[in-house]
């Protein structure tokens, strides 16, 4: 386990804040749009988990790869998937990143390096290993970041992926976003060990347990892991502690989450805290923050408008993209 404590530069913190604020505002807009009945479908809010991918985005190159899961909106935004096509994909529009075929659980945006979103718990880990293997074989210098939840650390694919990545010393970072619940079950009820990061020892893997809501610690963890991967020093397992503010899926009544726990977590909102800290430290003025937020507001509103006004796909599109060439289905 690596101790993470050193300070990070104000520039980096502003970057992290800007990304995190974007995720937060986007999420708020998405939920509001749903509540207003303007769109339906499933939505897995990542409110509360913004700092984790925002910290990575301050470290990663555009050409690096990120893999995520159904709860992936924060990872997708942080990696730079354009909000217009991203939103259009969530809305099932022809203009979506995946032409409306994939949907929220299966967003891919090759141009920004968001290479995979999977809906099957744990399945992204072996694929991330392959992405990193490819980078290593192609000597491209790219790094793969594989995001997953606390619940995913109990499934077989986790074990196989970590073993292979360690064995082959691949440039991959396994990021367990421990938001303390797998659906409606507290993570500790499914886990035979108190910290997921301790499982790294089973693979002699560099492992970091970090407060994923603390931007300084999280940035350092991300940087340590990505630098090591880039330097050919193999994979890292990061367990980033965080919390989901809105339960598993939109509509979750959250009865299984103790009220005080939820309230405490929301009271410690990491995005608001970082905002306040930056102002308090004099890194940003109130005005600057307001300006950043106004810019984000415009971008987000435009994205929702773009998506809302985009056409639905044509039914005839249902049978394309199954195979490379037009073989008879």
């Amino acid at each position, binding site marked *: 386990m690596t101790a993470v404590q050193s300070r990070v530069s104000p520039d980096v913190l502003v970057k992290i804040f800007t990304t995190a604020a974007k995720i937060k505002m986007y999420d708020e807009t998405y939920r509001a749009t749903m509540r207003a009945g303007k769109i339906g479908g499933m939505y897995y809010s990542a409110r509360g988990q913004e700092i984790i991918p925002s910290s990575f985005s301050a470290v990663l190159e555009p050409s690096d790869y990120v893999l995520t899961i159904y709860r992936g909106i924060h990872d997708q935004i942080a990696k730079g998937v354009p909000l217009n096509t991203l939103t259009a994909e969530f809305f*099932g529009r022809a203009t979506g990143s995946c032409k409306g075929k*994939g949907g929220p659980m299966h967003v891919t945006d090759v141009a920004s390096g968001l290479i995979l979103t999977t809906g099957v718990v744990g399945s992204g880990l072996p694929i991330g290993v392959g992405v990193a293997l490819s980078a290593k074989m192609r000597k491209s210098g790219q790094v793969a970041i594989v995001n997953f939840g606390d619940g995913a650390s109990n499934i*077989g694919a986790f074990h196989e992926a970590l073993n292979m990545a360690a064995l082959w010393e691949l440039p991959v970072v396994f990021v367990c976003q421990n938001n303390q619940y797998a*659906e409606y079950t507290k993570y500790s009820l499914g886990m035979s060990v108190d910290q997921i990061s301790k499982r790294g020892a089973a693979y002699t893997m560099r492992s970091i347990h970090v407060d994923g809501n603390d931007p300084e610690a999280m940035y350092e963890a991300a940087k340590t892991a990505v630098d090591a991967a880039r330097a050919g020093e193999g994979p890292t397992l990061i367990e980033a502690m965080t919390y989901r503010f809105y339960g598993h899926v939109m509509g979750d009544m959250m009865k299984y989450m103790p009220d005080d726990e939820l309230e405490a977590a929301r009271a410690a909102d990491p995005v608001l805290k970082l905002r306040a800290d930056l102002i308090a430290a004099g890194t940003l003025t109130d005005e600057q923050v307001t300006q950043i937020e106004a810019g984000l507001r415009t971008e987000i509103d435009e994205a929702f408008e773009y998506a809302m006004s985009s056409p639905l796909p044509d*039914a005839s599109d*249902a*049978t394309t993209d199954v195979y490379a060439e037009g073989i008879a289905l």
Partner: protein
Amino acid sequence: MTAQSEVIDPEVKSERILTQIQAINEALDIALGLDETVFELGEDIQDPGGGGFGVHKGLSTKYGLDRVRPTPITEQAIMGAAIGAAITGMRPIPEIMLMNFMAVCQDQLINHAAKLRYMSGGQTHVPVTVRTTTGAGGGFGAQHSDMLEGPLVHTPGLKVVIPSTPADAKGLLLTSIFDDDPVVFIEMHHLYFSISGHVPEGDYRIPLGKARLAREGSDVTLISWGRQVHDCMAVADTLAADGINAEVLDLRSLVPLDTEAMLASVAKTRRVVIVHEAVRRNGFGAELAATINEELFGQLAAPVRRVAAANTPVPYSAPLEAAYMPSKADIEATVRGLF
């Protein structure tokens, strides 16, 4: 069968109207109450939620977390634990939250559960009822919607059940749980809340391998299971207005299969359309069509037709998903094409 209580005739109409999810909950409750070796295991099945859809509501409170046993996300261990418990005297009811995730524990199911009776020369058997849910049409996308009964039917040793009505769901589930073979019990979540029906109280069992004649007719046979039975019924009504009298056969269980009822109906009507939600290529409709053609060669007035999903993954966006699914319009047009 270890536990048997007074069995109620499901044909006797009950006054109670239940949803399919209530009927399934009731079957689980009865089975847990009847036999100490029955237990459930699966992800998030405990109260207060009682499962993603609420199938298990109240059961962990009533029977405890030992017998309504929440698990980590660990399908191989869920299925393996069920098999190990089953070969040593228990009757586990594992839940695989969605059918696509059965791919994660496919080895336990097809290489072990299905084969252990045979491989052991009959010394052990696997009285496991694997419950799962699935179905397209809900905007869940390619990894949460597949109907995968076809590959299961191709696995000797497994039984495969797909109920269409609340009363059937209850009676078939109770039979499955007390059956001594591994049964995959496929619940189409579209039916959980959308269709209500009369459900008798208490314990009753509907035998596996007996199709339900959902509608009698003389001109064409519609063969289906699960959600699409209701589509067939609706189409039959439409056709009746035009004087086409469709018989609708609900297979209920695909293995064992009520070949007799199927052939008798088709021999009578001489026209048949098989309807299923799984993709067409090598779906179970292919087996049925092949069998009907073999057995009734030269007796049919028209080719055996299949209405099924397109040979693509399940798309997300609504118009694409609608194009993917077999629709009532498809069924109707196909039937009309036979005349």
